[in-house]
C-alpha cells in the first residue's frame, strides 16, 4: 500500500520529516503545558533543573525549529498546493503561522529572560497567558497539518521532487 496509513508513517520522506518535527514540537509544548499546569498561579522556581530545561527547550525549539518548519511549508509546499488549485489550505495554514510565529517569539524571549532573572508574579502571569495561547494554537495547528496537509503530500510530490525537497530540508536542520 502507498500513502498515509493508520501507522502515521508516510511514503513521502518530506511528510515523514515534517511529522517528526511535529512530534518534537509536541514534546516541547507538552512539557510547557505540564509546567503551567503544575505551577498554576504561583511562579515556578527557575533554579529547578526541570523548569530550566523546559524554558530552554521552549525558547530554542520555537524560535529556530518552528520558524524553519513554517518557512519550508510556506515556500515549498503551499506554493505547490496553490499551483494544483488547492489554494485555500495554504492560505489557512499561513494564517495560523502568522498567529503562531510572533506568539512563539514572545514566549521564547520571556523564557530566556526567566532563565536569567527568574519570574516575578507579574512576568509569570504574562508568560503563562502567552504560553497557554501558544500551546492551544500549536496543538490545533499540528492536528490540522497531520490530518489534512501531510497526507496530501502523497499526491502533491512525485518521488524525485520528494527526494530533492526532503534533502534540502534535512540539510537546513
Amino acid at each position, binding site marked *: *500500500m502507498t*500513502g*498515509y*496509513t*493508520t*501507522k*502515521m*508513517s508516510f511514503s513521502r520522506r518530506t511528510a515523514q520529516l515534517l511529522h517528526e518535527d511535529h*512530534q518534537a514540537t*509536541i*514534546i516541547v509544548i*507538552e512539557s510547557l*503545558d*505540564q509546567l503551567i*499546569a503544575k505551577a498554576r498561579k504561583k511562579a515556578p522556581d527557575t533554579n529547578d533543573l526541570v523548569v530550566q530545561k523546559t524554558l530552554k527547550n521552549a525558547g530554542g525549539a520555537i524560535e529556530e525549529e518552528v520558524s524553519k518548519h513554517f518557512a519550508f511549508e510556506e515556500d515549498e509546499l503551499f506554493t505547490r498546493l496553490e499551483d494544483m*488549485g*488547492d*489554494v*485555500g*489550505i495554504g*492560505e*489557512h495554514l499561513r*494564517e*495560523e503561522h*502568522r*498567529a503562531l510565529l510572533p506568539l512563539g517569539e514572545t514566549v521564547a524571549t520571556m523564557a530566556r529572560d526567566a532563565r536569567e532573572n527568574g519570574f516575578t508574579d507579574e512576568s509569570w502571569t504574562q508568560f503563562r497567558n502567552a504560553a497557554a*495561547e501558544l500551546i*492551544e*494554537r500549536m*496543538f*490545533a495547528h*499540528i*492536528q*490540522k497539518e*497531520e*490530518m*489534512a496537509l501531510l*497526507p*496530501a503530500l*502523497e*499526491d502533491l510530490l512525485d518521488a524525485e521532487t520528494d527526494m530533492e525537497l526532503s534533502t534540502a530540508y534535512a540539510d537546513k536542520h
Partner: protein
Amino acid sequence: MNSAGSFLGGAKDRLLPASIPFRFFLSASLFHVLAWTVLFFAADEVARFRGGPGLTLAAIHLATLGVLAMTAIGASYQLLPVVTRRPLARDWPARLSFWLILPGVALMTYGMAESALTSMKTGAVLLGFGLAVFAVLTADNLRRAGSFPVVSAHGWLALVSLVAFVALGVLLIWDLESGFLNNHLSLAVVHMVLASFGFMGFLVLGLSLVLIPMFVLSRSLPDKPGWAQLSLTAMALAGHSCGILLGNMPLVWIALAAGLGAAGCYLWLMRKSLNSSMRKRLGLPFILIRASWGFLFLCLLLGGAVAGGADIPNAPVLTGFILLVGWLLTFLLGVLQRIMPFLASMHAAGKSGLPPLLSELTAEGPLKVHAICHFAALAACVGGLLLNLTLLLQIGAILGLIGAIAFAVFAVNVVLKLKRPK
C-alpha cells in the same frame, strides 16, 4: 469569498463549507432535546416496549436518526474527503440530503408518536431518499479513495448496512398497515442491530481509526487489528441477522462472540492510541469517549444475557438503552464537542483577524452541565428499568433533557461564532 472560505467551499477542496456539516450538527442537537422530551412522556410504557408505534418508538428514532445519524452524516461529509484525499463530487447533494432527512425524521417520528401511518410513510420515504443521496455521494467518494483502505472498507460496510436497515424499516412501516410479514418482531430486531451496530457501528469503528489518533496525537496504530475488527463485525452482523431470522440460537451465540471479538480489537486499538498519546490532558470529551467504550462492552454482555434468557428485569429494553444512549450517544456527543470547535476554527476569524482559539469557540460551562446530566440520566434510566420505576425514568429523562439543552447551548454558541467579524 475570503481566503478561508475559498479553502473550505471550493469544488476542488476536500473540506466543505461550514454550513453543510453544521446544519447536521445543529439539527442533531435539536433532536437530542426532543428525544429526551418524548422519553419523559413515554416513561410509563418504556419498560414494556416490544416494538410498535407509540412514544417509545418515536423517542428511539429521534435519538437514532435524529441525533446519531444526523451527527454521523454531517461528520462523514466533512471527514471522509479529508481521509480519502478526494473532495465530494458536488456540494449540493449534501444539502439536498439534509432537506430530505430533516423533514423525514420529523414526520416519521411524529407519525410513530401519534400512530399516524400516512405521516410515518411519508417521513420514511423522504428519509429513504435523503439517506440514498448520502449513500450515493459517500459511495462515490469511497470509490475514488486514495488512502486509508481499512477506513474506506468500514465506510463501504456502513453503506451496505444502511441500505439493508432502511429497506427493512420501510417494510416494517408498511407492515403496520397490512400485516403481510409473519416475522415482524424478528425483522425489527435485525433492523435495529443493522442500524446501530452496522451503519453507526462501522462508521464509529472506522472513523475512530483516524479521529482518535488525531485528537490525542498518538504515534502508531497498526492496520491488522483494524481489518480484524471489520471482519469480526461483519461476521457478527451476518450471523446475528441469519440467527434471528432462522431462529438459530447457536448462530446468534457465534455472532455475539464475534461481536465481542470485534469490540476487543477496537478497544485494543483505542487503548494503544491513548497509551502512545503525546497529549496528556485530553479533557472532558475523552471522559465521554472512554465511558462509551465501557458501555459498548456492557451492551454486548447484556445482549448475551438476553439471548441466554437471564433473569434481568426488562433486559431487552435495557440492552437497547445501553447500546443507543450508553455507547453511541455518549461517544458521538464526546466527538461532536471536540470536532465542532475544531472545524469552526477553520471558518471563523478571531480578534485581530487571526484564527480564533478553540477555547474561544467552545463553552466549557454548558459542556460540564451536559456531561454531568448525561451520566446522571443514564444511571437514573437504568435504575428505572431495573426497578420498574416510572418516576426514576422520568427523572432520568428530565436530567437528559437538561443535559441536551446545555449541549444545544454549546452547539449554537459555536455556530454563532462562525460569523467572521466585518
